Structure formats: C-alpha cells, structure tokens
C-alpha cells in the first residue's frame, strides 16, 4: 500500500475501531425497524388464534428463535466440514461464531417454550417432543462451547471443535426420531397442538415477519461475532509475537554484555 497525503482518510476506512461496517449498519437498522413492526403486529394488531388463543403470540418469538438456532448449527456443521478440508481460519471462526449464537437462540427457544407451556399446560415443563429434543441439543452444543474454551493452539482447538460440530449435527435427526417415537407413545401434544394451527391474514404476516426479522438479526450477529473472533485471534498472535520479540531482545542484550565483559577481561 502506498503512503499518500490521504493516509489519514484511508486509515479511517481500513482501520476501523469497531466491528461495524456499511453492511452491518444496513442489517442492523432493518432489523430494528423489523422488530418494531413485529411488536406492533405480533403483540397488538394480529388477533388471538382460534385454537391457541393468545399463546400464538409466544409462537411469534419461539418459531423464529428455533429456526435461527438450527440455521446456526447448520452453518457450524458446514464450517466444521470445510475447516477439516481446507484448514483455513475462516471456516473455524465461522463455525465457532455460529455455534455460540445458536446456543443463545436455543436457550431462548426453551424459555419461550416453557412460558407457552405454563399458559397452556399450567406447568413450566413437560416432556413433550420439541422441548425435550431442544434440551438434549442445547446440552450437546454447550459441550462444543466447553471444548472451544480450552486453551490450545489454533489448529488443535479448531480440529477438536470441528469434530464435535459434525458429531453433534448428525445426532439432530436421530434425537428427533427417538424423542418423537418415545413421547408419541404417550400421546404428548406437541408445542403446536395435535393439529397445525390455521393461521391467516395478520397472523401469517406476523409469523413470517418474525422469521424474516430474526434472520436479519442473525446475519448481523454472525458478522459481528465473526469479526470479534477474528480480532481475538490477531490480538492473541500479536501478544505472542510481542512476547517472543521481548525474549529475543533480552537474549541479544545479555549476550552483548557477556561478550563485552569477556573482552574486558582480556
């Protein structure tokens, strides 16, 4: 890069002091606008459901959060596979960032599910298929984050995480099947009731809007989280590099004094 008098201006572009950019600002603002719209339609405008009553409003949160969570873990799986193939930092950081966001949204899914359950069943928890599966998967991905937190060199950490990312994702359909068959034996109502609710008009709009808004939100979060992960790696590297440079400095200084002492003795 050539240094010119416009260095200051280009510095401001190339060396941002945060993880924001034009893309994230667009995503962020549209998310906020969308969220406002969602509150208006989801909480106030759309009517209560014939079958589900007011609880459909919780589903406007619950369905988007679980969708985002599954999308996140899909990205983690793809990132894990790509990392094991290409061995580039990008895929590792993408997988890890997506996993963390996925865990947050899985947690929210369970929260919303429990609140829906409290209204519908009168209890915060029932071993119905969706909630049970989500609980198992949440624990699985908490394990991913636990391994991620273990101090290790980047390649070791990335390999371990990638393995778990893949092992966890193939478990998802198996857990679904096992839990569905198991709880189906007890005629547990799923969180959607025994029949899919017929939603139309503003209800459908609120549902799809919720999905769209949360997807925008997810993209915004993923970009920022990825950049944070990237910066963390650079900071760790430069920290290590600085420490090594210091040692070298000390070593050359002490050997220089040793040489001058021995010369002085002669």
């Amino acid at each position, binding site marked *: 890069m050539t240094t010119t008098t416009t260095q200051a201006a280009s510095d401001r572009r*190339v060396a941002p002091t945060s993880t924001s950019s034009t893309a994230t600002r667009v995503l962020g603002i549209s998310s906020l606008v969308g969220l406002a719209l969602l509150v208006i339609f989801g909480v106030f405008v759309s009517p209560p459901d014939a079958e589900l009553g007011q609880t459909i409003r919780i589903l406007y949160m619950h369905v988007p959060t679980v969708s985002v969570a599954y999308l996140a873990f899909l990205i983690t799986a793809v990132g894990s596979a790509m990392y094991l193939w290409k061995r580039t*930092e990008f895929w590792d950081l993408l997988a890890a960032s997506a996993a963390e966001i996925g865990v947050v949204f899985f947690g929210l899914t369970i929260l919303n599910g429990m609140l829906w359950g409290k209204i519908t069943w009168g209890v915060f928890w029932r071993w119905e298929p969706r909630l049970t599966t989500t609980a198992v998967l949440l624990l699985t991905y908490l394990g991913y984050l636990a391994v991620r937190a273990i101090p290790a060199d980047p*390649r070791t950490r990335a390999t371990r995480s990638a393995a778990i990312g893949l092992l966890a994702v193939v478990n998802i359909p198996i857990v679904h099947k096992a839990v569905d068959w198991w709880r189906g034996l007890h005629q547990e109502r799923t969180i959607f009731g025994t029949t899919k609710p017929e939603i139309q008009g503003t209800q459908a709009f609120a549902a799809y809007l919720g999905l769209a808004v949360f997807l925008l939100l997810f993209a915004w979060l993923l970009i920022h989280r990825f950049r944070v992960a990237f910066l963390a790696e650079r*900071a760790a590297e430069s920290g290590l590099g600085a420490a090594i440079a210091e040692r070298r400095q000390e070593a050359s200084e002490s050997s220089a004094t040793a040489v001058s002492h021995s010369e002085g003795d002669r």
Partner: protein
Amino acid sequence: MSTTGYIVVAWVGTFLAVGVYALWVLQRGRALSKQVAPEQRRWMKSTDTNAKDASQ
C-alpha cells in the same frame, strides 16, 4: 401471573437477551480493535495461518 404476563415476559425476555448479547459482542469488538494493529483489523482474504503451523 396472568397469560398476558407470561407473553410480556416472553417478548421482553427475548429482546433483552438478544440485546444484551449484541451489546456484549459490540463491546468486545471495540475493545479488541484497540488492541490490534490497524492493518490487521479487517479480514480481507483467506488467512491460511494453519499453514504456518504445518510448516514447523
């Protein structure tokens, strides 16, 4: 707590959790940006840092 109460908790809780997480990510981003040298701050191309390890 009434039905409305639980619905409020669901919406507020979700927004709050996402908001707190988002703020935490943003704050970490700012803090790390200060620590990292300017030319290293943005991912520009595929950095094959693992290739360096492999060559050791």
